[in-house]
């Protein structure tokens, strides 16, 4: 059985002035796997995530998420089509508490009716109750349920990262993009994160992971795409990619010399 990939990108190109940050990238992500995008600094990993999520549109190309063309669609429309993401630099809502942060995304598929809100009628209370349940579930998954009522900015750094994942999960995504989720985490926190990612995969969510730390991703990824200077230079199972001379030269080689 050949089901369509959940993400199918063709010829994605992004220029910043004279710099070609993404050069004609093709990317297929099959459903239900963990796929990693790796590459040295400045290779275009985050630019690719931004193009996929609509945060910063590609200049050319075609991007289909679950069969829907999303090229140049507003990010909130892409989110409602089932794509959620986290950020490399944390972007939590500082003026909301922990559970409210998650509720913002949990309301992703709830239409807002000013009339219902103002009259606080039965329908409004029911939809708030549903949002609350979804948000608590998402907090439970990342282990933040106990901090639901704390101020979001009072959370320690690693937990703010988990909060972003909970927020992304609350919109019930088909695909989850994680941009360097382990950045700034210690070994224990990274291990917990890996376990969480594995659990999400087994619940059927496709995960596309950008990571700088190669060793971290090799264990959990089913498929690895390697970027260098905005070009895709290799793709395949982690073990194949690790042996690829181009990858070793572009990325692993340089790292080994430093290490």
């Amino acid at each position, binding site marked *: 059985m050949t089901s369509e990939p959940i993400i199918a990108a063709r010829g994605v190109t992004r220029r910043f002035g004279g710099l070609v940050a993404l050069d004609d990238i093709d990317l297929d992500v099959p459903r239900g796997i963990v796929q990693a995008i790796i590459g040295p600094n400045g290779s275009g990993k985050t630019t690719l995530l931004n193009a996929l999520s609509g*945060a910063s549109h590609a200049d050319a190309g075609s991007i289909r998420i679950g069969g829907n063309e999303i090229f140049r669609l507003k990010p909130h429309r892409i989110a409602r089509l089932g794509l959620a993401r986290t950020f490399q630099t944390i972007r939590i809502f500082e003026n909301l508490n922990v559970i409210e942060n998650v509720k913002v995304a949990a309301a992703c598929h709830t239409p807002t009716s000013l009339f219902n809100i103002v009259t606080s009628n039965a329908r409004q209370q029911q939809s708030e109750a549903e949002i609350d349940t979804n948000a608590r579930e998402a907090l439970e998954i990342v282990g933040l349920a106990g901090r639901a009522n704390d101020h979001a900015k009072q959370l320690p750094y690693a937990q703010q990262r988990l909060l972003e994942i909970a927020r992304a999960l609350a919109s019930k995504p088909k695909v989850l993009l994680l941009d360097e989720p382990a950045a700034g985490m210690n070994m224990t926190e990274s291990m917990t994160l890996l376990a969480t990612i594995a659990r999400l995969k087994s619940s059927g969510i496709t995960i596309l992971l950008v990571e700088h730390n190669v060793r971290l991703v090799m264990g959990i990824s089913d498929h690895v795409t390697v970027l260098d200077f905005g070009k895709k230079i290799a793709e395949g199972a982690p073990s194949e990619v690790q042996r690829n001379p181009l990858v070793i030269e572009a990325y692993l080689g340089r790292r080994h010399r430093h290490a």
Partner: protein
Amino acid sequence: MKSWPILALSAAVALAVPVVAHDGYIIQLLNIAILNAIVVLGLNFVTGWAGQINFGQAAFYGLGAYTTAIATKAGLPWIAAPFLSVVVVVVASLMLGLPTMRLRTYYLAMTTIGFGEIVRLMIVHWEPVTGGTSGLRAIPGVSVFGFGPQGQVQHYYLLIATLGLAILIASRIRHSVLGRAMIATRDSEIAAEQSGVDTIRTKLLAFMIGAVYAGLAGCLYASSIRFISPDSFSGTQAVLLMTMLIVGGMGSIAGCVVGAVALTILPEALRFLGQWYLVLYGLGVIAVIVVAPGGLASLVSLSQLRRANAG
């Protein structure tokens, strides 16, 4: 909830005020303070929560007041005036908001300053209808099928009830999908978008709801004070409304009310100082911003936090 005792106490004080203060002048001042509080609550949606700087709030206040004054003086039954005022400010806020909500913060500030100036110039120069700089007098009072408040004290209770309703609705919006979306938009527009929030629509709604608050307050201003002039809705007033929001506490419902009441009463209370009043007023505002950058409302939560840490 912890805030219930404070809420009940404030309500009791608000209801008891006319019993203690018989002075018509004080009641009149309080009536204006309450109207300002409603307008600042409206400003809080777009500026305090959605994070968009809006200097057009005084103009919406004025549009509501002039619509009501002109319509009721022309013989329209009062009951229709609030609806007409709302229609006018909704149309105006849509026309202004649709193109500008895509702009970033500072451009919006500039656009709304321009809008305020256009409204003021219209009021000043369309003399046969608006009375020009001398304003409009003898505006018919509030009257619903022949019943209406008589005297300042009854107006006070009408306005307090309206403020209560305005607070209730603001609080419901704050704890709904819409309120959270507004604050998310302020904190990180891109993270809000990626969480499925249509940030342009959210900003536009915040702007429109704020305009409706101002429009209704303007309608009540015209029919309870019975006299309006362009000065009450000028650019200076727009800056004053923004100051009330900042001093009271951006994003805090209680802060809006405290800021509006304090900055309406303070200039009158300090009148005996003559020209020194402005110096003291300016220093006071600076002091609040330095001591409590989150406004007067944040002083309460700050002391709570200290007590929690100490205990």
